[in-house]
């Protein structure tokens, strides 16, 4: 059901934990749906120096959190905002249709953490709109607020 890449990140997730003095924290999802993702960023000179996550969710939710944190580590804030759920799915060699929403959460969690950082900095909030690929009907979660097309 899951690719080797997914199982790899699931069994040895990277960047699990919290950052005590985080520059920005983002939390998305809800327990009712069965998934919550929380991402902590340490940003210095506009560069993501460190990133940690905590996730309540399925195998795919843990794997997408892990790879997303790897993908933005060392990147600039602008670059991190360009991370899409599709890039996360591709990096994991694909996800089953019912698990695409986990990748949506990963993109949104990163954006939420950056938004928090920018607010704290008193900076103009750049666009943190979701820019990935919306789940289609088959991939949609009926419980979430997100509207699927």
């Amino acid at each position, binding site marked *: 059901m899951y690719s080797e890449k997914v199982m790899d990140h*699931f*069994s040895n997730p990277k960047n699990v934990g919290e950052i005590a003095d985080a520059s920005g924290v983002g939390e998305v999802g809800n*327990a009712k749906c069965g998934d919550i993702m929380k991402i902590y960023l340490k940003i210095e000179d506009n560069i993501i120096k460190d990133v940690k996550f*905590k996730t*309540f969710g*399925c*195998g795919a939710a*843990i794997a997408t959190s892990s790879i997303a944190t790897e993908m933005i580590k060392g990147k600039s804030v602008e670059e991190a905002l360009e991370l899409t759920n599709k890039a996360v799915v591709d990096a994991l060699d694909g996800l089953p249709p019912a698990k695409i929403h986990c990748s949506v959460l990963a993109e949104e969690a990163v954006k939420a953490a950056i938004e928090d950082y920018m607010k704290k900095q008193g900076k103009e909030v750049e666009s943190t709109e979701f820019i990935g690929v919306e789940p289609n009907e088959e991939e949609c*979660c009926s419980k979430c607020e997100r509207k699927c097309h």
Partner: protein
Amino acid sequence: MDSRKAVYMDHAATTYTKKEVLEEMLPFFTESFGNPSSIHKFGRDARKYVDTARERVAKALGANPEEIYFTAGGTEADNWAVKGAAYANRSKGNHIITTKIEHHALIHACEYLEKEGFQVTYLPVDEYGLVSIEDVKNAITDKTILISIMYANNEIGTIQPISEIGKLAREKGICFHTDAVQAVGSVKIDVKEQNIDMLSLSAHKFYGPKGIGALFVKKGVKLINFVHGGAQERGRRAGTENTPGIIGLGKAIELATDNLEEQSKRIMDLRDKLIKGVMDKIPYTRLNGHPVKRLPGNANFSFQYIEGEALLLNLDMKGIAGSSGSACTSGSLDPSHVLLAIGLPHEIAHGSLRLSLGTVNTEEDIDYVLEVLPEIVEKLRQMSPLYEKIKGGNTNV
């Protein structure tokens, strides 16, 4: 991947086929391949063994052989019972009573009947998964034509007061069906004593083959045909008999019911050890289902702050096979209707684990699970944003 260990604890999903069962089945694929409806020797031989299987099923249930009809499994038996009785009694009424925790085979059949103009009452259950007799009584109207309540639940293992429901249904003259797919071979059943009018069973839950089951239909119960065609099964269920499957079902039910008490006792002791160990070792854990009115092999837990699929994957990596009522495993996005019906909030239902024991399990298996499971739960909790560790707390919820 730890491949040294393989611990199968998903017997409620399916069991392996016992060697003795397979051995009885094999000749019916090759030398004794005859069609039981044929008049020649090949056919007559097959017929003889189909009849023996029917007798074995009847004996296991306390029924007469003429009251046993073979089907292609539990799902067909459930569908036939509910739809067949509903349409056969349409002139008498249109009301059906069932529960919120039935298997999907039954719930979806009832939902279909609702679209066809029938009215269905889905009775609630208490926190242990038990239906109340009072609720059944109060739900009965003069339009009620069928009561269908499962013998034992497949997820949480709760055993319903079947004899009491049977007695009530008989007094009121209402047809009573029970889905006993999980109960047959695990608990003692007597359809006469318990006033059961129809009962579904499925061979692959008691060490028989998959895709074969039976419906017991008490003599005189009105039921329309579900599968139309030839005159097999005394004209009530068409289609050339699945001879090897039927023979396997007969052997399996005989083996399962012959020393039922002894087997059940052994499995129950293992299960109680598992439950006690898990509840002692893992904080923030809930046992789902009834403490004693439960299937001998069933253990079902909810671990707070974690999600079931992640738990199953981790267990699988350690060679332990279980199942979960989490939405994430089913692909349906809703957690199990059974866990919601016993009142679990969504987030706790997501963190459920069912371990169902069977004949293959040993004391060592339980020790192994008790060694591995607490570590996995802790690892996932450490990853969970919901988990706030309360120092030294061992508060079971």
